[in-house]
């Protein structure tokens, strides 16, 4: 199959066809060395708060489930940055009766994550059962001790699930609802217990649909991640070839 690509500059007719070989070689090398089209990486920043009682004891268990969080949100080309865990002493917050009392306390687009022992309210939207977490698109979410009691490795996706709520995703919108989807409600969603079962591997759990990815990435809590480009050896070789071609072209032109 032949692929036609438009060159990023106009060919000077006085060069053609004498220097065409070298020029086309250089242009081809430049085109080939251009990065492939991909979603620009976005990021969110989370401030975790570990709540303890008034005396600074009996602190809530914390874990960022970093490997799982990273792999789950990599589906959306979203980098999750965590600031250092800060301690807050408040017995009332440790066993919180009102999710709204936790709130968004960090500046700007920094999302707050509250590790509490127990939570007895999630905006009135849950019935009887074990409450693992609660999140709101207003910029904060909470995770309870139940997450750590769930199994030996814990309910590793609650943090990512609640982050999804912060980023505007619900339990049944944007294609959620399947047992393998990250945002499906807790009673139906299957929880990965090994990284090898997180989508796209193994059982393909904690899946995000294209619509969910689009919605989450459009949240005001996301921003473009700084790009650090490290050229691959092949790319560097092609770029060198391009420079060599351009140099040869100039030398030929000067010699005449």
């Amino acid at each position, binding site marked *: 199959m032949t692929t036609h690509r438009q060159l990023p500059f106009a060919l000077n007719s006085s060069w053609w066809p004498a220097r065409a070989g070298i020029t086309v070689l250089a242009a081809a090398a430049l085109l080939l060395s251009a990065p492939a089209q991909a979603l620009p990486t976005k990021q969110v920043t989370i401030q975790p708060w570990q709540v303890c009682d008034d005396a600074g004891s009996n602190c809530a268990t914390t874990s960022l489930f970093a490997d799982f969080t990273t792999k789950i949100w990599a589906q959306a080309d979203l980098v999750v940055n965590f600031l250092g865990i*800060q301690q807050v002493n*408040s017995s009332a917050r440790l066993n919180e009766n009102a999710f709204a009392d936790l*709130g968004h*306390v960090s500046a700007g687009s920094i999302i707050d994550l509250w590790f509490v022992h127990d939570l007895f309210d999630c905006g009135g939207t849950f019935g009887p059962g074990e409450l693992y977490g609660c999140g709101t698109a207003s910029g904060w979410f909470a995770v309870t001790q139940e997450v750590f009691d769930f199994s030996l490795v814990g309910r590793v996706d609650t943090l990512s699930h609640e982050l999804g*709520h912060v980023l505007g995703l619900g339990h049944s919108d944007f294609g959620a609802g*399947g*047992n393998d989807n990250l945002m499906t409600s807790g009673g*139906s969603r299957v929880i990965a*217990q090994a990284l090898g079962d997180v989508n796209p591997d193994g059982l393909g759990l904690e899946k995000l649909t294209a619509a969910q990815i689009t919605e989450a990435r459009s949240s005001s809590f996301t921003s473009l991640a700084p790009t650090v480009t490290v050229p691959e050896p092949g790319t560097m070789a092609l770029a060198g070839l391009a420079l060599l071609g351009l140099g040869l072209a100039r030398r030929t032109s000067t010699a005449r």
Partner: protein
Amino acid sequence: MLTLAATPVGAGAPAADVVVLPPVFEAHSSPAGTYVLEIRLREDANPHLARATATLFRVTSSKRQAVWTRELPHRPRPRFFAVGDGGQVVLLDEWLNIRSELAVMVLDLAGCTLVQFDLEAVRAALGVPISALAPAARHGVWMQAPPVINARGDAVEVAAANRVLSIRLSDGKLSAH
């Protein structure tokens, strides 16, 4: 020192990650009503750990007699169960929504474990890739529908990965169609 001055809930309604606990008590009869299996949950234990007791009863026209009682290893109890007219019991998956070592367990008339299969064994019997299980599942990680005992009464059948897994009651052998 942090001052807890929270922003009121506004733009986004909170949403919970919550799991409703299984019923404290559930019972199923065999097709002809010759046996009844009861599963009872202990309410005072960790909801994520094993805490169910199963009791099989033989039922005649004149009485109902306990055949065996045993603790179950499922967390906190099996998701589904069925009992055959020969008193064999099939326990399917765990209530906890995870990849389970207890995908299928068959108990004999004495309440002893005849066979036990993990999810990989179920996948192999179905003859599908592991990635085909969860997308079709409606109950846990692999089942599309609750189990049924087949017309001949000799196997429990479960839809999974758009196929049907058959569990033979006499020996727990898995097959698929």
